[in-house]
């Protein structure tokens, strides 16, 4: 039709391939792991759709630029806004759920989760963008070019996943079973005082028979900065109660002398191995991370 411009077949191939790889990047990173989040179909759908949209934005950027449609490239700024909305949406959603959980996730943990969701949308965008650029610039056309583009996109995805992978409690500390002792109305774990809130006989019996505790010992003294952070301890407790359930009572306590952190609770499912495993796998919060090497660096020259 005169006056109308259509996409060339080669551009269409680039865009479709990049969208598929970008969306695949979001699917791969939307894993349901031991934290069981998100574990509901609607949550999956929301994140897959936003991943698809971000992949689309990344994939059309190059063809738009090459067709001298510079305004279309400003869509990338729209993407940034969209990703920020993803973070905000995730944050609001988790904050709304706070009152319904066994224990609070805490603001620090929610902030970390929301940022991760935002970052994973950038994965989709960047992977789609790089895939489309690769297909366009490689000297091979047709299927060979597309396969090379897919390979580069997947390699980039692998690197991004590796780079963004955070550390866990198990990387910086030893997690061991704590010995529970109830003396009158006081609870002790490995000789450390935890609470005196076991005032009734029923509470004492419950903790003696069904209580569980773990002791987290940092590998290095400076790891105490992470472990003793309130948000971090709250995240540990949240993951433990989410995995094991909570019948009654939950406590964490710090030992100021040796930096040990105790988590004690009465779970629904009494599984000590699962308790230790979930504490070990609890992520170190980004907002808490203080790399020792950076702390030591004399950046200001003083």
């Amino acid at each position, binding site marked *: 039709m005169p006056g109308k411009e259509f996409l060339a077949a080669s551009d269409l191939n680039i865009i479709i391939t990049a969208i598929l790889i970008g969306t695949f990047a979001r699917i791969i990173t939307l894993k349901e792991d031991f934290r069981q989040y998100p574990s509901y179909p609607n949550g999956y759908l929301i994140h897959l759709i936003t991943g698809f949209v971000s992949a689309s934005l990344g994939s059309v950027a190059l063809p738009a630029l090459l067709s001298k449609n510079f305004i279309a490239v400003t869509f990338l700024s729209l993407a940034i806004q969209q990703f920020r909305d993803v973070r905000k949406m995730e944050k609001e959603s988790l904050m709304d759920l706070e009152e319904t959980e066994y224990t609070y996730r805490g603001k620090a943990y929610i902030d970390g989760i929301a940022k991760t969701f935002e970052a994973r949308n950038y994965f989709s965008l960047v992977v789609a963008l790089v895939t489309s650029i690769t297909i366009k610039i490689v000297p091979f056309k047709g299927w060979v070019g597309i396969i090379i583009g897919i390979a580069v996109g997947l390699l980039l995805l692998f690197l991004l996943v590796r780079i963004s992978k955070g550390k866990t409690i198990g990387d910086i500390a030893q997690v061991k079973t704590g010995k529970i002792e109830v003396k009158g109305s006081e609870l002790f774990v490995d000789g450390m005082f935890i609470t005196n809130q076991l005032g009734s006989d029923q*509470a004492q019996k419950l903790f003696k028979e069904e209580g569980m505790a773990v002791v987290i010992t940092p590998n290095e003294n400076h790891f105490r900065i992470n472990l003793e952070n309130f948000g971090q301890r709250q995240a540990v407790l949240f993951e433990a109660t989410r995995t094991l359930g909570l019948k009654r009572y939950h406590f964490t306590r710090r030992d100021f002398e040796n930096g040990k952190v105790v988590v004690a609770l009465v779970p629904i499912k009494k599984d000590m191995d699962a308790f230790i495993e979930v504490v070990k796998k609890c992520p170190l919060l980004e907002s808490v991370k203080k790399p020792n090497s950076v702390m030591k660096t004399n950046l200001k020259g003083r």
Partner: protein
Amino acid sequence: MGRESKINPKYDILAVITLNKDRVLSGKPLTLLAQNEEEQKEMTADIAKALKAEIVRMKTNDFLIIRE
């Protein structure tokens, strides 16, 4: 129970159940005088159950019912 809900949890003392009438003073928390230890435990448990609160047994053998 909610030690982790805030950095500095603020507990309210809802009731004090004692065996010593000299410790029954006026004030905000309800203070009850029990006749014997068994009655004291029963009263404490009943109030704590109704208010979904925690029980602290003091070394003086008085019971506190507290809630965050």
